[in-house]
């Protein structure tokens, strides 16, 4: 029996698998203890992470020590000379640098996406320029899709964790319109995969994703207001 791959296990744990794929995955973990344990482990990890405080203030004496070391003259940089004469960075510093790099990278990506989506900063959706041709264009589109899917999954998760406060009728209307968007996204995606250099199709796809994110964010903001 072949097991679920890492992506499917994570997506199942996160509740972001599409309906058909979810059914298949759930049928698999019903009979596969190993995959079921993996999904449960990730879910527990998510729950544990969610229960952690958002900020942890270090004890004042630690902060005071850090400040003193930062301002002390002649304080050596946290690089260590190796016996071979080269330089290596302490693992803790390396980890901090990695985190910083990831943050900067994420920030740059977000800034780029925002800038691309709204160059004038007006809040108005602007055409996303997919100027690459052929496969490189498709890669850019896939990256765009991925970033939207991530954002949508995040809002959907937040929505699922709080009562919507919306009436059943409003929820039904919203779901019907989400379905309309999903159908439009499917059509645009299929057309774009056949014609990846078509900028207009990329724009249709972006517009569809933007609308979906918009609807979910609106529902989420109403849910927050009423919960």
């Amino acid at each position, binding site marked *: 029996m072949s097991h679920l791959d890492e992506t499917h296990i994570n997506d199942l744990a996160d509740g972001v698998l599409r309906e058909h794929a979810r059914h298949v995955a759930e049928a698999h973990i019903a009979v596969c203890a190993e995959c079921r344990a993996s999904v449960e482990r990730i879910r527990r990890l998510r729950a544990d992470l969610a229960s952690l405080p958002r900020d942890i203030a270090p004890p004042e004496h630690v902060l005071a020590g850090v400040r003193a070391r930062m301002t002390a003259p002649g304080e050596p940089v946290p690089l260590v000379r190796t016996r071979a004469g080269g330089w290596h960075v302490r693992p803790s510093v390396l980890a901090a640098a990695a985190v910083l790099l990831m943050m900067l990278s994420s920030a740059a990506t977000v800034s780029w996406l925002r800038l691309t989506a709204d160059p004038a900063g007006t809040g108005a959706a602007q055409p996303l320029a997919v100027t690459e041709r052929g496969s490189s264009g498709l890669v850019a589109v896939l990256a765009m899709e991925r970033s939207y899917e991530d954002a949508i999954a995040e809002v959907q998760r937040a929505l699922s964790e709080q009562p919507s406060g919306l009436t059943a009728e409003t929820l039904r*209307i919203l779901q019907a319109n989400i379905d*309309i968007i999903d159908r439009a996204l499917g059509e645009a995606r299929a057309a774009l995969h056949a*014609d990846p250099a078509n900028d207009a199709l990329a724009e249709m796809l972006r517009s569809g994703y933007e609308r979906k994110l918009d609807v979910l964010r*609106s529902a989420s903001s109403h849910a927050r207001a009423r919960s």
Partner: protein
Amino acid sequence: MMSIPSGAGAPKGRSAAARMASAFLAGTALFVATALPAAGQRKVAERFAAAPDGYIRVQNIAGSVKLIGWDRDSVAVSGTIHDTPAERFEVQRGDGSVKLGIWDTTVERADPSHMEVRVPARSQVWVRTGSATVFVDGVTGELDINSVGGDIEVHGAPAGLFAESMTGGIVIDVSSATVRAKTVTGTIRLHGVIASATATSISGNTLIEDAAIDQGTFESVDGELRLVGTLRRGAVLDFVTHGGAVELLLPAATDAEFRVSTYEGGLRSEFRAPIRTTASKIKGSEQRFTLGQGGALVNIRTFRGRVVVRSR
């Protein structure tokens, strides 16, 4: 002289005086019933000083909110309120800010409350409703209006306007620097003079009629986008829809450049300007044409929606 057929309403054998007394009592009861609030309702009428450009928040679940900007440094609120079992209508005053209305997170539906709120014209106003309709006129500060299902109608000259109703319609007739309107199913109607306008919907239609817009973005997934009127010189308007039609009804003497991109939709122009077509390798096409001197730029993108440019 009109006569009441016997047996139609007056019991036989009763005197004229008794009938008159009955009629008087019935009339009095009707007057009382219409003049006084129904059970559970109460009337509110408050007026207090407020900053001329303060921040005002108004909330109502169901019913209506009528917001009027006036040339006085005070807020006046009046209306008929239905308190909910858990929450009462409240007015809270802070330093330069006012919060009033009724909001209850424990009820899905509430009996309607109708409130009229007069605010200093330069106030910044934030309104949130469930199904209550919102009407605004005369506010020149920023307006932020958000409703789940209530209709929104705004007039006047707000500095900026954001209006969102998921399932309600939005009517905007303003003179403003920026207007943002958003619905899921509701129809958006835009009129007036607007420097920068954005209207988005999923399946709701958008109608821009007799509006002077410098920069506009109108997007929908399945809704129709329709513009009736003239295009300002130098205006840049973008229309994006997946399945909805785009229809522009313009004067014969229009100066504008059009760039139309459709995948399965088609373009039909009643103007005689030559159309240059650039076909995609696979499917779809981009068509361009210029009317008059080409003073404005109109970009249209659809997947399936047909595009019609007609002469008025």
